[in-house]
């Protein structure tokens, strides 16, 4: 566990991209962790919401491959609690785009054939999980 993360321009560029796409100033996050314990999905996540922001702050692009950003249910509990006024839901949405906009879907809707879903479920899943 003595891997060194270099704080370099590539990381800086990643942070800038996420900030532009989400419209949030991520350097405002002081890592208090309120978002994490407000998140109803946190137990299903591999990294906590606060850790997601920290990863972006230090330019760690691997956060786009985390499970956590897909577990997010866009419930906005974090958004209404953040003491710095950061809208985290917008940040996870931005991070999902790094996959979706490369034409890679998170779910295959063909898997959803087995059940009769209400339209709202299919449409929202399609919007969030496919490009």
């Amino acid at each position: 566990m003595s891997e060194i993360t270099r704080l370099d321009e590539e990381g800086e560029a990643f942070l800038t991209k996420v900030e532009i796409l989400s419209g949030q100033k991520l350097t405002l996050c002081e890592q208090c962790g309120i978002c994490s314990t407000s998140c109803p999905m946190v137990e299903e996540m591999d990294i906590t919401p606060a850790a997601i922001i920290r990863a972006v702050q230090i330019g760690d692009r691997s956060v786009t491959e985390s499970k956590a950003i897909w577990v997010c249910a866009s419930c906005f509990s974090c958004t209404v609690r953040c003491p710095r006024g950061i809208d985290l839901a917008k940040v996870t949405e931005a991070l999902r785009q790094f996959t979706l906009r490369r034409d890679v879907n998170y779910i295959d809707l063909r898997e959803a054939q087995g059940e009769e879903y209400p339209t709202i479920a299919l449409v929202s899943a399609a919007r969030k999980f496919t490009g």
Partner: protein
Amino acid sequence: MLKFPYYPGCTLKQKARNFEVSALAAARYLGIELVEIPRWNCCGAVYSLTTDNVMRQVGPIRNLIRVQQLNDSGELPERRLVTLCSMCFNVLKRANLMVRSDPEALRLVNQFMDTEPDYRGEVEVVHFLEILRDVLGFEKVSAGVARPLEGLRVSAYYGCTLLRPREVGIDDPEAPRVMEDLIAALGAEPVDNPNKSLCCGSYHTVGRNVEIVAKRAYRILQGARDRGADLVITSCPLCSFNLEARQDLARKLYPDFRPMPVLYFTQLLALAFGLEEEAGLEENLVDPRPLLRDKLGVAV
């Protein structure tokens, strides 16, 4: 007779017909006519959260243009568009706020929809609960009660999109009370539930992560059960589906789980107004009728 333009959304015409049927009946009873707007389209279910999301507002805004057209033609001058589904409410209201605060975005959206008249930003998006609370007042609702729901202990489940984020919400996300006040106005006993706005899991119900939803359904319903609730009311067809359809899976994960009926708040209204024939109760996935016969003596 109050008349409002009304946006049903896709699911209310498909899996959640009971929501619409009971709502229209209850509204009519209260002297409110909900006029379905013509040629509406799917709202998109979720609000697109990235900063470059201007094109995703086209769908929601087109529905607001329909209202604007009704206003301009004089057919229905009311500017407030009423929604029933919380998610539709959230998307439409957020899209509206966005283009109203960003003139460039409004211009782009209008330009893209070149066959539609330009949206001017004058429509207001409201939820039916706001009409009951702010326009009619719960006193009038109470006055209309034909069958007080005494003895029925009801827990409100708000979900996420009715209350958050703050600029959209119809009540304080940390301490909402509109549904509890409505329950009390109908003569039933409101039961508090600390998980009343805990996310049900939303779209995770599709696909392989469905357990996420089952776990939360358990927490929400058990939270209500532990405090003595007989049933739970919601305002969203996705919350409703998640809380009903995932009860079997919840039972598998948590053996102590017992089934709990889930009603739309408008079905509760219909019951209180003696309109049980139009409450659509036969369509609820967890049959509430035995409980209602037992507790209220209703012939359903």
